[in-house]
């Protein structure tokens, strides 16, 4: 039987030992951070909130899946219509009008010159006694920014990839913002297509000045903007809902090719 012997004399550590020690230190740090970051959430969400957060995240994921499926179906339909239109003059004329109407509705991706903006909550510690929500970007701030862009000549806008359409509402629920009923988190990235002078028109506008003076500067919100030769504004992937709105009875055809 052999017994292991311990050599207690000091030796210079090997390179791999130093690496291992550093790695273990990093591991310990990460474990501590992970445990700490879970701690407070686990405490205050001990009753009804964790299932609610999980449900909201699940519904958001489902929404993303539905939108992707809708975008795919629309693209398939468009391809089918175009393929048929190649062999049929009447269908071809109608199809061109349909593509125009979809572009007008915001159901088609656009690319062109414009601006990109990033709008984020205030960083750093808040002043004593401050109301935290004042230092967050709110729906009203985004609406004011959209107004400034439209008045500056923008022709298509998206916020975090959500196309702003004729039916788009930007609303607050607690500290979160919904655009097209999709939950968006800061930083908000806004892309807008307009003329080459959109950036100059935006930055020189009274509407933007009012947002800067009333909210951005006093509450240290982080708003950055720059002109770009080409920005992408994705298509609207939501539903086209018409339940109450009917066509106006008319003596002349409203749609090319329709009978009165």
């Amino acid at each position: 039987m052999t017994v292991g012997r311990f050599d207690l004399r000091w030796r210079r550590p090997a390179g791999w030992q130093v690496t291992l020690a550093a790695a273990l230190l990093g591991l310990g740090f990460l474990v501590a951070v992970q445990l700490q970051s879970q701690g407070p959430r686990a405490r205050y969400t001990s009753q009804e909130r964790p299932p609610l957060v999980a449900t909201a995240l699940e519904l958001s994921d489902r929404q993303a899946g539905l939108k992707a499926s809708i975008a795919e179906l629309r693209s398939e339909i468009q391809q089918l219509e175009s393929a048929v239109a190649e062999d049929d003059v009447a269908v071809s004329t109608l199809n061109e009008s349909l593509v125009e109407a979809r572009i007008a509705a915001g159901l088609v991706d656009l690319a062109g010159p414009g601006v990109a903006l990033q709008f984020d909550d205030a960083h750093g510690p808040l002043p004593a006694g401050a109301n935290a929500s004042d230092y967050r970007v709110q729906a009203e701030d985004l609406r004011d920014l959209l107004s400034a862009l439209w008045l500056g000549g923008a022709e298509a806008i998206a916020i975090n990839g959500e196309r702003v359409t004729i039916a788009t509402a930007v609303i607050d629920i607690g500290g979160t913002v919904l655009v097209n009923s999709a939950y968006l988190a800061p930083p908000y990235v806004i892309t807008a297509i307009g003329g080459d002078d959109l950036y100059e028109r935006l930055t020189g506008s009274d509407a933007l000045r009012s947002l800067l003076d009333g909210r951005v500067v006093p509450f240290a919100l982080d708003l950055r903007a720059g002109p770009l030769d080409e920005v992408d504004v994705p298509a609207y992937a939501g539903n086209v809902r018409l339940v109450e709105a009917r066509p106006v009875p008319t003596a002349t055809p409203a749609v090319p090719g329709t009978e009165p």
Partner: protein
Amino acid sequence: MKSRSGRLALTALAVLLGFLVVVQLRSQASAGGLENLSAADLTTLIANLNTRNEQLAAEQAALRSRLTELRAAGTQHERLVTAIRDELERMRRWAGVDPVVGRGVRIVVDGPIGANGVNDLINELRSAGAEAIAVEGVRITASDVVADLPDGLAVEDIALAPPFTIWAVGNPPVLTASLTRVGGIIGRIQVSQPLVSIAVEPQALVDIPATRHPTGPRFGQPRL
């Protein structure tokens, strides 16, 4: 480190470190601020997401059925023309290219309201599901906003002198309830601007004109 077991241990440690970094980053990003919401706000958010998902599921079903219809129509000219024409007519109504009629509400605004107040009313109508909106006869598309000019409010090139009227097509009880609820948009406007009066009336028939400005992009290139 020369031994095989030492190398294995270091590899395992590196894998574990990588895993923890990812877990940490994901745990910070996944809830995206939702954990800061109150239970009441989360419930409202869930109700919104639910409603929206139901609408999206209905749209998905309608598109599937349209795809089936188009495939079935094949080379049958009449069926195909009808299907495309129906879709074209629906799209033009939604985009504001064609006028529409339907049930809705009439909102009369009087007093010294600011442009933001009117834009907030329009936003609330959209949030409540309005399908078409007009302010003093101007169809409100995505890009139409009310502006504060030195001599008063304007939308497109029309001056808005109070009292003025906003018309919206949509479910009248839903639109009315959304606008007039306690703590809602009208209440908030009247708290900050007490001299403003806003009256909402359900209507059996509202006429909304087509937009007067071109709807095609001047600078953007469509990616079809």
